[in-house]
């Protein structure tokens, strides 16, 4: 089949790669045990808390989970527009404002 695929220039991902990608995605959620709705709530509350200290662009906030070994990492990428409470200094641009870790461990 691969011989024919190559002959006709088809280049679909292999079923092995599809299996691996799907597993990695589903396991991120299995390990954290957090629903997309809960993730949205988390994001909204985080924006609220951080906005008390610095002005951020809520539209640009990205919250993602990643995996390395059996550790899950929650990364929030939050664009900072400027300070809120202390109008002495101006900063701009994106800053990795929050990095926190969540221990993966099934339901533990």
């Amino acid at each position, binding site marked *: *089949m*691969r*011989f024919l695929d*190559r002959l006709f220039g088809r280049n679909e991902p*292999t*079923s*092995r*790669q599809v*299996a*691996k990608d*799907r*597993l*990695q995605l*589903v*396991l991120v959620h*299995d*390990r954290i045990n957090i629903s997309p709705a809960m993730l949205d709530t988390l994001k909204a509350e985080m924006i609220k808390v951080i906005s008390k200290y610095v002005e951020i662009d809520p539209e640009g906030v990205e919250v993602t989970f990643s995996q390395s*070994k*059996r550790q899950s990492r929650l990364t929030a990428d939050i664009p900072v527009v400027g300070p809120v409470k202390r109008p002495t200094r101006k900063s701009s641009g994106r800053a990795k404002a929050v990095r926190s870790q969540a221990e*993966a*461990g*099934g*339901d*533990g």
Partner: protein
Amino acid sequence: MRATIVTITSGKGGVGKTTVTANLSIALAMLGQRVIAIDTDIGLRNLDVVMGLENRIVYDLVDVVEGRCRLRQALIRDKRLSELFLLPAAQTRDKSAVNPEQMIRLCDQLRPEFDFVFIDSPAGIEQGYRNAVAPSDRVLIVTTPEVSAVRDADRIVGLVEAGEKGPPKLIINRLNPAMVRREEMLSTADVVEILAIDLIGVVPEDPAVIVSTNRGSPVALDGKSPSGQAFRNIAGRLMGKDIPIMPIKESANALERLSRFLRG
């Protein structure tokens, strides 16, 4: 003697826990170890038929914990290897007939008598699993290179780690090297990367397993079969021998070789 208690578990059913338990028990007994295999799949016992000892059952695990017989009376001595024993599960009860404390007490009684105590866990993550894991020193997780089995194995890894049992080790069962080569199956490296635990062995898919199970004569007894060799290697590793994990060879006939040549 102070036995090592090894629990074989998987989460998903049908991935080969019982086959692995039977074969590792046999392979270690062949290496001169004194071994007992305990079936904790109460209500769905099978280790007895896989080991070919089903006709000799008088008492079972539940009889022992409920005190209807002495432990020694319930142990079935293997007909081929005199240092190998089986403690069968009850067939007419359910998982709640035994609790984790009883399993720990039972294994404490067995510890001075044996080198290895193998516990064949039922599928699932409920009481049967907890019974099987409670007394264990080492947990071996069996998976096949399929998404459902790997996903369930990941759940078990999480549970074992949360239960402070130390890092479990992985057995990949029924790997088909030809399918891996064609990128139609997760490879050993893929599964290890996803689960992120140490590998203790890879068992190739092998028709000899079914034939040997038909006869009640586990494949580890078969000197030539590739799966039997894989089980004997895992047994050696459990004894602390440094046996490298060999890449699994394809058994190819002329037609397969020709088609492989055409595929490139």
